[in-house]
């Protein structure tokens, strides 16, 4: 069938385009699922974000795709923050190794909180940047790579899709 052929061709083009960009940029490395982050950086960042907005009865930063949002922005609009992220993530892992002998993602939740409280104090600029980006990725528009499935909008009870064109004159008293 014609449509089947087209779909397959598009899929192949898509795959080869991804491969080509991964090779030409070599940012995240061939094995990394991310655009900018390396596999190891992505693991650390995911663990950090999961503490900033944890999962409870509602999904947290990890399931909402916050790291996907940050990685996508670091590849486009947030290019200027790349060095800050490289250093900041390295700093968190280094502190984790020094204090507990393992990288951040391998620590217990209690150990992670100790490291993050120290980071918030010692590296406030990076911590605040990351916190803002995490909030954007969790509470912002899904089109930018985060808030997967509109999880945060569901969580706060924001009607979506919105009722369009209404006037709500029934709310008028009398």
């Amino acid at each position, binding site marked *: 069938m014609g449509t089947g052929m087209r779909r397959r061709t598009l899929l192949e083009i898509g795959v080869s385009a991804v491969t080509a960009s991964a090779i030409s940029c070599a940012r995240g490395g061939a094995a990394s699922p991310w655009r900018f982050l390396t596999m190891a950086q992505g693991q650390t960042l995911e663990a950090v974000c999961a503490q900033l907005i944890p999962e409870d009865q509602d999904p947290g930063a990890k399931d909402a795709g916050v790291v996907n949002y940050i990685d996508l922005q670091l590849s486009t609009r947030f290019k200027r923050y790349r060095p800050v992220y490289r250093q900041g993530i390295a700093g968190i892992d280094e502190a984790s190794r020094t204090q507990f002998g393992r990288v951040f993602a391998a620590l217990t939740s209690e150990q992670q909180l100790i490291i993050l409280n120290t980071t918030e104090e010692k590296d406030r600029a990076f911590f605040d940047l990351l916190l803002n980006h995490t909030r954007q990725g969790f*509470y912002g528009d899904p*089109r930018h790579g985060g808030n997967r499935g509109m999880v945060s909008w569901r969580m*706060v009870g924001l009607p979506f899709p919105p*009722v369009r064109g209404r006037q709500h004159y029934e*709310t008028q008293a009398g």
Partner: protein
Amino acid sequence: MALKKVNAVIVGAGAGGGVVAKELATLGLTVVLLERGKWYSAADCRKDDLFNQRTQVLGAKFGPDDERNPRVAVDEQGRESIVYPTDGGYSNNAACVGGGTFSYGAMAWRFMERDFRMRSTYGPVEGSTLEDWPIGYADLEQFYEKVEWEMGVSGDDSGNPFKAPRRKALPMPPLAPSREHQILLPAARRLGLHPFDIPMLRNTVPYNGRRSCMRCRWCVGFACEVNARTGTHNTVIPAAVATGNCELRTDCMTREILLDSQARATGVAYYDARERLQEQPADLVIVCGGAVESARLLLNTKHRLFPAGLGNRYDQVGRNLQSHSYSGANGLFERETYDDLGPGASIAICDYNHGNPGLTGGAMLANEFIRLPYQFMAQVPPWVARWGQEHKEFVRSAYRRTIVVMGPVQEMPLADARVQVDPKVKDRWGIPVARLSGGRHPHTIEIGRYIAGKAEAWLKEAGAVQTWKRVPGRSLSGGQHQAGTCRMGTDPKSSVVNANCQLHDVDNVYVIDAGVHVTNGGFNPVLTILANAYRASEQLLKAWKGTKVMA
């Protein structure tokens, strides 16, 4: 290469420039309207909560862009840094056809009589350049009315006993009251205050061929999807173009005003959309770039007679930069306050604009615009953890249970809060950029604390179980309500333009935007900018004699 000469070239298609273009073109003058940004439409409402004019974390949707438009900001310790439109400290206002009016919240306030006579009402404030306007409310009243009826304002201020006298009521009724409105209204009355419906440049019934507000949640910061919100982009600018006498040129960045040997203007030099330098000859040059960019253009126009910039013989251009020091409070309620109805802001009081004991002025207080979840981050109280489980739980439980009441505190002008041009940093076109320095007067902050206390009391009376204040710091104030840099006055030694908005020293150059505001009222300034543009246009046209204005 010079283009065909016109009667007037207007720099900036925002609030002021749009009105002037329409008034001049309607009376038969030939006009070129230059705008550095683009002409957006209702179709440009992308409802992107991270990329709009209110929340700019992924860019300022309606300009200017970060890549081409740096500025230099100097903090109170004298440290300078290069800043971009999406940074705090840049004092950004939109760069597009309509200017700020394309994506604003659209409150349409008349100033009060005392707002034009701050110095004679309250006396001098130490360290401040507080002054009276050379015109009064009576000079503007008929033009306020003209904006309200020609462009279209909705609302109902009949319940506001503090308002200055008006001859005609507003042409459109207010929107039906939201839940916040219904909670705040009886509380204000119990406190003996005088609540009423905010006037807005917003259709609430079909008006001027455009439909009414559909009350969506993408209001301030966004393009209005149904074209119900009113700005110069969907009223006076299309009307100006429709006369056949006005040509609107977008993506055009003005470099300087061209002058003859006697320092009379002969036109402007600008870079067109393809970045080619063009010269547009004109009988009149009308500068409408907003307080920061208008001052920058004058300062970048150097001449033998004006070595420090056009109209800057007495070092007044760029001084007295002011805006509003928004102050107020947040309240957390047990009941739900969120009803998902835009625009959100709807109820106001003017009980604290004037007559506050020991204070010079004050502010109108109103409930805030509807907020999207990311914007709610700014409303988490200081005692809640900044991250982790506690923060998430607060957002989840409080998002639909808060009300914010804020007011634009009128600021005490400072000579040292100023726009200069930077000696080193240039923009994409090689034009020296604006250099912003200075801070806020301590009395402004004092008024802010008082106003925040009043907002808190209103919220408590309305049933808030917890409240927390919001008071600004001492850093330089600017942004969307920027004003004051080309002060209107009678004395050339302490002002830049005369009461007709004409440069004291050069009779064929005008400044018509909020730059001429001597003080900025305790209100959103747009209706005053628009009304003054109608008034200044009328003065100009009365004196117009074919190719020049006669004194």
